[in-house]
């Protein structure tokens, strides 16, 4: 049994079956598979349930007739509870459902590995070098810091500009409470936790499109409005914009509150596995 499962797992995780590409593509693949299978299972099980309920409805025959024809013993008042047999069928359907669920999950696990590790090693884009951006949530807005130190802030209406077809890696944290940074259109989401850094990546494919980033963890009165615009640019365009931002001194947006010194500026490097190369040159 466990052997079969192991083989199954290997098959399901073999390269051919695991979708690759941007997160949107990956998500779509897995979501539709789950949706179709889930709906199928749901319809079969619920249909079977309704069928039985109808078939065995009480049609008012006397107990004796019924017990004769169906050969079943009915529960009696005051008896010690007992089971009603039918164990084999139960196990058969249980095993079947277990196989479906386990193989689905094994397959999904392959995708998880791809998302967490595979894509990290060889990004599915021509542009190998990923863009690393630090995202910091605060009550109530998002700050994005590029490798050259340039910072944009959603609260003053800045948009988060990203190049198309290039992997963007996010290092997400928070300046105050627990937030969650998500761009539903790009299928990326990550907790923003004070004192912690979480990593996620995404690839935007269509230059000229705008997406909305939102907060997915209740963070106070302004939670509903904690959005940011994500602007996808062609690589060239983005490069031009980016080069123009280089030598700016960081304007600390101190308009937004910080809660009495929790953010004592631990350098990002402490937390990242590989220190960010702030002087990194980017070539299109």
């Amino acid at each position, binding site marked *: 049994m466990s052997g079969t499962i192991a083989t199954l797992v290997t098959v399901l995780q073999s390269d051919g079956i695991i979708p690759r590409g941007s997160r949107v593509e990956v998500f779509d693949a*897995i*979501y539709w598979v*789950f949706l179709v299978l889930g709906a199928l*299972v*749901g319809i079969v*099980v619920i249909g079977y*349930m309704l069928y*039985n*309920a109808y078939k*065995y*409805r009480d049609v008012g025959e006397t*107990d004796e007739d019924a017990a004769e024809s169906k*050969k079943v013993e*009915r*529960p*009696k*008042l*005051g*008896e*010690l*509870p007992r*089971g*009603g047999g*039918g*164990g084999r069928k*139960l196990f058969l359907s*249980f095993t079947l459902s277990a196989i479906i*669920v*386990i193989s*689905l*999950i094994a397959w*999904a*696990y392959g*995708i*998880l590995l791809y*998302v*967490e*590790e595979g894509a990290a090693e060889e990004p599915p884009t021509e542009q190998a070098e990923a863009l690393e951006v630090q995202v910091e949530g605060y*009550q109530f807005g998002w700050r994005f810091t590029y490798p050259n130190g340039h910072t944009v802030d959603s609260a003053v209406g800045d948009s988060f500009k990203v190049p198309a077809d290039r992997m963007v890696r996010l290092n997400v944290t928070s300046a*105050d*409470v*627990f937030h969650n940074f998500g761009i539903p259109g790009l*299928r990326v*989401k990550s907790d923003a*936790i004070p*004192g*912690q850094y*979480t990593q996620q990546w995404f690839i935007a494919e269509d230059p000229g499109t705008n997406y909305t980033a*939102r*907060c*997915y*963890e*209740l963070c*106070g*009165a*302004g*939670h*509903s409005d904690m959005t940011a615009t994500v602007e996808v640019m062609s690589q060239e365009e983005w490069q031009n914009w980016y080069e123009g931002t280089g030598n700016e001194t960081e304007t600390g947006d101190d308009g937004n509150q910080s*809660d*009495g010194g929790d953010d004592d500026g631990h350098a990002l490097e402490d937390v990242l596995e590989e220190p960010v190369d702030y002087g990194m040159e980017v070539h299109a």
Partner: protein
Amino acid sequence: MPDDNNGDDGSVPSGERDASPESRADGGEVTDGGHAVREELPAGDEHGHDFPSMGTVKRWLVTTNHKDVGILYTVTSLFFLVFGGLLALLFRLELTTASGSFLTGTAYNQAVTAHGLLMVFFFLSPFAFGFANYFVPLQLGAKDLAFPRLNALSYWLYLLAGGLFGLSFLQGSTFAGGWTMYAPLNLPMYLPEGVGSTTAVMAMIMFVISVTVSSVNFLTTMHRMRAEGMRIRDMPLFSMSILLTVWMMLFAFAALLAALIILASDHILGTTYFAATEGGSLLWAHLFWFFGHPEVYIVFFPALGMMAEVFQTFTGRRIVGRKWFIAAMTLVALQSFVVWMHHMFLTSINLEIKTLFMATTIGISLPFDLMVFALIYTMIKGRIRFTTPFLFAFGALLLFIVGGITGVFLGAVVLDYEFRGTYWVVAHFHYVMVGGAMAMFGALYYWYPKMTGKMYDEFLGKAHFALSFVGFNLLYFPQFVAWETPRRVYNYQPEFVTWHQLSTVGAFVFGLSFLLMFYNFYKSYHHGEDAGDAPWKYASSAEWAIPSPPSLENFPGVPSYKGGSLSFLSEEEVHGAAAADGGPAHGHATGDAHAGGHDDHASYWPLLSSVAVFVLFVGLAGTNGGGTVYTATAALGGLALLGTAAGWVVESFHVSEPELASRWPFDGVENTKLGVWIFLASDVVVFGAFVGSYIFIRVAEGWQNWHHLLPADHVVLPGLINTYLLLASSFSIVLAMVAAEKKSRAGVVAGLVTTLVLGIGFLINKGIEWSHFFHIHSEHFPEGWTFGTNVASSTFYLTTGMHGLHVTLGLLVLLWMIPRAWRGAYTSTEDGDKPLEYFGLYWHFVDIVWLFLFPLFYIL
């Protein structure tokens, strides 16, 4: 302890409504169907209680009877359903537009938060426990729960905790940080101004205390008071589900209690656990979800048990694979404690841990498949009658299937990444939880005839089902479609507005359908037909073998399953059997010759103590920021609590243990002792959570860094002295017990006094140490080293302070015991030394805890 026997019986006729002659006559079925013998109630049943009748208000204030308490729970929980439901309708109205209109900002957050807390804590579980109170003793064949006064206490604590929560709305603003109360949004600096948030936290603590008391009570009852011949696995599935629920509650709520105490301390004392940048947020998430995932099953299991019961009755088939059903439930109950991190897939936990928790999560979903199939197969060859209870149970199973399938989506981590924080989650958990609630409404129809003696109106019942089922799906299904909406927002993507409007229409259909239910129950109570003892054909458990509603003492004799099915034994038969069974060794705890029928059922103390706790908590919530009125209120409440505690012990309240019962695996201990054990087991988890939190924060901070956070004066010596003091006191309490064994009154008094003195020494030593730390003026700590100085001081004061509180409580009990010992209470009778033994258990436990705290806080 409070419920042990220390009294005599009055003999005033009870006003209890007796079973009507008709319903008795109906009961003949038992004799036909099985070997059960229905005897006329012994005349003695009529006396023994100074107990007002059900028509009086007083009855409901003093009652400790499990059926009365069950009704109180049911009615109260329905009140909170309406409360939480109205809040939901309010924000559903807000959601009919995609941008904020009338309920925005903090107001919206409060409504959503209060809705979640009220529905999960104040409606679902108490609703289930209304049934558990009423029917578990009946299904087991017990006269009442093991500790009836504690049961009433649970109820009043619950009701007043709800009152406290309501009060928080009036104090500026209630808690607005979501029902998951994530840190650090749960701290005063991020919450709306005013003491309301703190009051809400205190209300939650009060609720958890109620749950803990109740868990101890149910566990003791279910393990020691089953009718003869009923093994654990022979319990009807509803009782079985409650047993597992209560075990989960005991441990899960202990973790929540610790988390809430820490939170309250952050609010009131200014400790800095959850404000800690290093790890504070994650600490809360771990503590909360360690509780939170079992909680999911805690609210669902009773519903599952009720579904099984209703399926068996209305299909006329025994549950298919019953023992596998039980095994599956047990497995889930155990596993529920090792899946909590699936709520944290998007935090910084690493891939290995994600993998592990993905596996356990999928593992826990599989037993549910088995249970669902078991219920479906039970219908085969059945004679299914589509009564209202069955329709609800059937509908609930259907909803649960949808909820379960959509849950598997969430178990696939990559999908969870996208679903987290969206309406997918909202829709999924409503399918599961409100699905469970549907099963429980079915159970309400199922048991209504038993509880009231009247039959409900079937047509109205079916109409209620139809409307609520349609309303439910209209309410929640669109939320799957519009799943990309973030949770807890009033401002969402405009393209989803139609789906949300549909959902709101569904909400009103669903909500209004309950008017039918209330009307039905009201009308049927006054004008319904008499239901008879056993209105449902094929119902098999014991509650259907007695009148509707059952008499105060439940059974016409002593229930027994020795012969394979239910029979009622007379007193003589019981004595015969008990003697053959190894004699009074089991029944001796009462030390009472006529242990039969003269139990007490009335006490004011549960109510009064709960009021005292209420006052105390109102005060405590405001001590930091509310002004001196609050401090005075707290003091008043504290004094009142002490006073009422004395009331409990002084009151003579007689409860007998059954002479004949199945008690596996606790044959050798008496109820009170088992109760103390179980309580201590939950206390172990509370302390475990405190110590775990300390270690978690210290690791996040850097284990060795920690020393910089401690003042130089934090030395080992005071701790060491205290260790010796406590060890010595453990020894002296043992000496007292030995002396009691030898019937030496002086020895007992000497032992207890020594323990008291050592305990006081412990507290004084601690007091000196603390006051020194508070007034340090060193370079690093110019302002002293107080609660809020840093994480090290916070963990130090709170953890050792919790322990100190345990010591103080022990000393209060000792103060009570010493004069009694002097008067010979523990030496004059055979079993008189029991209370000493219980106290000893507690005291040793407190000492052992210290043995862990000492190295952690003084040496490492």
